[in-house]
């Protein structure tokens, strides 16, 4: 380890600050891919993306190309997308349906569970390659929760439910809002990238201290916008959401902000715009509410709609908005470059207008051309640049320090909604993963 010149992790993380190397050192980044992304449960997607046997999509796990399939027996499989013969990536399509996968190099063919089915001109091998255990390798662990697909590159570690802890209730929130009890990925996938370390997005998503500053220009632009300007409905949702980011400081401070083991966190919701929040009983939501009531009755419907959460962060690769049907999966590329894929979900059994609202909301919150998101991305890049300075080695994370209190189901709660408890908690998890050698 010393030959790699890695500093002791206890030298890099203090109660109220962390060393800039955690964002800038390429060697630490490589170690993160091994010790952190190589161990944690990572979110890959949702079962609706592989509904029927033969459905598949491709993605990455800790930078490695993987293939998620539904096999003939109906099981979800996560396979390393690499031919066991000479190493070529086997499937190059993003998603689709197929009876089998064929490598483009020498035609080796695999079934949807990864088994090697056919080797052209196999008689030249001293032994049939199918008997050598050659296959599309399964990743060590796969599990689902409420339809969300997770995988871990480590054979051992906490089970998925233990890993998620209280955060599972945010997945429940997302699914429970569907009148038919089911959700599906729909409406396209945004893929954006920023010039910054992967941690910057995870730190920002429960950072309620930043909107008034980072989003000052979109808040201003929306607040000044005349209400009677013609709209298709999409711009209306966007303007309302941009205005909402301008709530006063006491609203942000008053929000709940909870952290859990393994680096996770979730925040309460700050919305009071009736057109954006079903619980506030705008007439637009009448048909949706009626559909929920038909299944659950009015009391349970109130309970479901009354869960008020904005972002949930599942460390280290996912954040989602259970109430607004948005999920992002981050893909670290290099120490200073990160790609983010964002997905929308359709609530099955909800009126069509609900999904149109979801699409408009996705555009303004997660869209690559969003007047809001683009300012976040710019700030990530500025942090990354700033952290190259050698004059100050430390990032200060002292906001709310000392005010973190134990709360329900093994969580801790910040004393203020604008506390940096969630970032301190992420680094506690970081140190936990990183200090264990393989």
């Amino acid at each position, binding site marked *: 380890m010393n030959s790699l010149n890695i500093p002791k992790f206890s030298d890099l993380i203090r109660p109220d600050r962390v060393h800039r190397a955690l964002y800038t050192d390429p060697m630490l980044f490589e170690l993160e891919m091994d010790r952190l992304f190589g161990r944690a449960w990572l979110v890959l997607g949702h079962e609706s993306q592989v509904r029927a046997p033969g459905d598949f999509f491709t993605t990455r796990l800790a930078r490695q190309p993987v293939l998620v399939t539904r096999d003939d027996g109906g099981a979800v499989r996560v396979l390393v997308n690499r031919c066991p013969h000479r190493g070529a990536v086997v499937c190059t399509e993003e998603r689709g349906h197929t009876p089998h996968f064929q490598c483009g190099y020498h035609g080796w063919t695999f079934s949807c569970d990864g088994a090697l089915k056919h080797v052209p001109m196999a008689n030249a091998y001293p032994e049939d390659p199918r008997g050598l255990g050659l296959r599309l390798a399964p990743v060590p662990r796969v599990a689902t929760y409420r339809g969300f697909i997770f995988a871990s590159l480590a054979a051992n570690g906490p089970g998925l439910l233990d890993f998620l802890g209280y955060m599972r209730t945010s997945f429940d929130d997302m699914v429970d809002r569907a009148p038919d009890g089911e959700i599906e990925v729909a409406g396209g996938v945004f893929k954006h990238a920023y010039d910054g370390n992967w941690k910057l997005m995870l730190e920002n998503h429960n950072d309620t201290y930043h909107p008034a500053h980072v989003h000052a220009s979109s808040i*201003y632009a929306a607040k000044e916008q005349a209400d009677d300007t013609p709209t298709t409905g999409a711009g209306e949702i966007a303007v309302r959401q941009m205005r909402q980011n301008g709530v006063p400081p006491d609203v942000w401070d008053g929000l709940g902000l909870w952290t859990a083991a393994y680096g996770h966190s979730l925040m309460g919701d700050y919305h009071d715009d009736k057109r954006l929040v079903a619980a506030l009983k705008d007439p637009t939501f009448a048909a949706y509410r009626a559909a929920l009531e038909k299944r659950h009755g009015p009391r349970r419907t109130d309970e479901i709609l009354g869960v008020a959460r904005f972002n949930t962060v599942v460390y280290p690769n996912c954040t989602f908005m259970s109430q607004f049907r948005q999920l992002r999966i981050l893909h670290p590329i290099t120490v200073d470059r990160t790609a983010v894929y964002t997905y929308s979900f359709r609530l099955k059994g909800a009126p069509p207008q609900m999904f149109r609202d979801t699409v408009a909301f*996705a555009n303004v919150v997660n869209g690559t051309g969003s007047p809001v998101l683009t300012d976040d991305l710019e700030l990530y890049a500025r942090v990354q640049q700033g952290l190259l300075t050698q004059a100050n080695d430390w990032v200060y994370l002292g906001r709310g320090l000392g005010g973190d209190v134990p709360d329900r189901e093994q969580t801790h709660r910040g004393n203020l909604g604008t506390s940096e408890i969630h970032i301190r908690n992420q680094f506690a998890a970081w140190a936990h993963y990183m200090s264990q050698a393989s």
Partner: protein
Amino acid sequence: MAESPNLRDIEEFLYHEARLLDEHRYDEWLDLYTDTATYWVPLERSQKDPYETSSLIFDDRKLMEARVRQFRHPRRHAQTPASRTCHMLGHIEPLDSGDDGAVRVRSNFILVEFRADRQFIYGGACEHRLVHSGAGYKIAAKRIDLVNSEGVLDGISILL
């Protein structure tokens, strides 16, 4: 049957729009659009509509006005410093004109953006729906299909 449009007039109109964007004359740019116009950069290839599928940008008049106002704010961080851009248009081709005199025009474009020491290149096809307004045209709809709309993109903080 409406009179067939004059190609030269249409070319000049599209060049004018591009120039207003490159010169950051956003209020004048907005004036080129009708009150019910849409400005659309689809996310997916051959995307059918902007309501059931997300878009890189899908603005109606309300959001276009807000977006233009945002450019003027001193803390529009993603435009501080402001981008310098250069639009190149080509293959300008009127497709058809309706009974109302509206003209659909297809064009190809390359757009170079420079900001904060980085250069970005966008390319693709545009479709304008132009309607007559006084002596000239107004834009009733603009659709911009980027060749890499489904790829991994950096944030887009300019108008294309």
